[in-house]
């Protein structure tokens, strides 16, 4: 076994109380550079809460998060974004009134955007920066096959394409870690499969580290290298898709106790059960 390098993202004993409700109760996991890890669990298990704490939208009650060796616990979202985290949202959050390409360009302002004075004085440097931003945004849209719709108002795009624009927006900033919050929410099986393939392709081609919160077992099992399972705010299991598939506790968490003598069921069945 090779000695693994310091993980890119490390979450330790993460806990969150909402008033008297303990939504998370000691979650631990870590991502190495280049990983594609799925964070899964039944409805209400605390996946999105954990995700929002990592990205900085919620503050943790307890625990520690390190990213790239630095402590990022309780950072603001913009600080984490500056450190190299990029995310998508479960309920799509695009800038609806802006064209597709402008949505992607917003993500490039932090790194490449000209300052206020350069903008107002109309300096050549500002125009050049603007052209670079547009070029980069178009290149990312091209990767996702959306360059033909660059000038369309994003609010008018079909749902699946809106998801992809969110991807493009997150990818444009060259993130060190891409966090995807239930990207297949509200999609039909065909769109889900298509998006799963897109995620796998981005991971393979761009070598980008991805943490994927997901509900759809089939998709996650197919593309992730490692899975972290949480249930009712507690860690349930961690391992490769094959290990998780065989884990009886995971099956129980999803489906309850199997009937005696019934056929062996795996987590994939969740998909069929709905």
């Amino acid at each position, binding site marked *: 076994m090779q000695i693994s390098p310091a993980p890119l993202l490390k979450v330790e004993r993460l806990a969150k109380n909402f008033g008297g409700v303990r939504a998370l109760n000691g979650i631990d996991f870590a991502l190495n550079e280049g990983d594609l890890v799925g964070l899964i669990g039944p409805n209400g298990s605390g996946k999105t809460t954990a995700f929002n704490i990592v*990205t900085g*939208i919620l503050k943790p009650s307890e625990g520690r998060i390190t990213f790239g060796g630095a402590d990022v616990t309780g950072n*603001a*979202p*913009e600080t984490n*974004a*500056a450190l190299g985290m*990029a*995310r998508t*949202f479960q309920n799509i*959050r*695009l*800038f*609806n*009134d*802006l064209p597709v390409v*402008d*949505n992607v*360009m*917003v*993500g*490039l*302002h*932090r*790194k*490449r*955007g*000209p300052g*206020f004075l350069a*903008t*107002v004085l*109309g300096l050549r440097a*500002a*125009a050049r*920066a*603007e052209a670079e*931003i547009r070029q980069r945004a178009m290149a990312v849209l091209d990767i996702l096959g959306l360059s033909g719709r660059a000038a369309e108002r994003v609010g008018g795009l079909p749902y699946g394409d809106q998801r992809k624009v969110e991807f493009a*927006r*997150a990818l444009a*900033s060259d993130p060190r870690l891409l966090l995807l919050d239930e990207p297949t929410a509200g999609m039909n099986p065909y769109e889900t499969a298509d998006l799963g393939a897109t995620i796998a392709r981005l991971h393979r081609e761009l070598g980008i580290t991805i943490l994927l919160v997901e509900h759809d077992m089939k998709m996650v099992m197919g593309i992730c290298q490692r899975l972290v399972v949480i249930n009712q705010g507690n860690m349930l299991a961690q391992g490769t898709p094959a290990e998780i598939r065989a884990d009886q506790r995971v099956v129980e968490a999803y489906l309850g106790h199997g009937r005696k003598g019934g056929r062996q069921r795996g987590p994939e069945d969740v998909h069929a059960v709905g």
Partner: protein
Amino acid sequence: MSAPAAFLLRFALPVGIGAALLYAATLSLDPYSLTILQFVGINVILAVSLNITNGFTGLFSLGHPAFMTIGGYVTAILTMPATRKTAMLRDLPSILAAHEWPFAASLTAGGLVAALAAVIVGIPVLRLRGHYLAVATLGLIFIVQSFAVNLPGITRGALGLAGLPPVTNVWWVYLVLVLTLLTCWRVKHSSLGRTMLAIRENELAAASLGVKVARTRVLSFALGAFFAGVAGGLWAHLVTLIAPGSFSILLGFQLIVMVVLGGTGSIAGAAIAAVVLTLSTEWLRPIEEAAGLFGASQIIVAVGVILVLIFRPSGLFGTAEPNVFGAFARRRRHAQSTP
């Protein structure tokens, strides 16, 4: 089309035509009409600058009258002849009292002090979400007014500063108007302006993309306040008077109406709405007097606002600009791509 050619066509040409028309106006119009023309220009400056705050960034500020008052007083105090200053404004620091500033420098100073006030108010208030800013800027109008009333050694209190040098003319207004439009246009069509629109559309997503939400809001608030301050200075030297009550909440409301009617985020929309509303209130006044229906024009405007909000909630233009050249270029590109 090369960049300098585009600049010439889009900027220098319209500005030149505007200047030529203005020159013709100064030759042919009577002084009353010229004064109205200047008020139109000042209102366009105000509406377009308020549109940075309310339209681009989606904040709801009512604070323009406050910033106009600040800018108006600062400009008025600076341009006043030194002899009058020492006689009338006894608490003024001697460094300000001894000198008489040129108009351009005074206007700039007025704008900068107004922007500074916006930063001071904005830093605590803009961290909050929702309509806190509307309430806070409403309060600011009254705070600024009571400062003006209660600092008689600097502002002459409720008397106000009368008999200011009448230095505002159509050319000053036109210069500031062009600079305002140019600045707003550049900000809107830049990476910075895009982050402002992003904050308006979805604050959380913008923050997650690394947009510095609080800082960008303060910037857009202060930028709007700067032009309001300059416009206040122009106004004061047009009517040659500034008093604590010169710019009231009513004016703030009229400016909001211009932005809402024109389209939140549209520079051209706000400008057109400002022109139409200023002229129509002026033209309706004799009719009101003849019919004995005072205030009828305000009722008409208010009904108009309600109708726009029902049938076109994003205003006449929304965020878009009616882009004549863009449409032309698109058609040409289209013609080239389909031989």
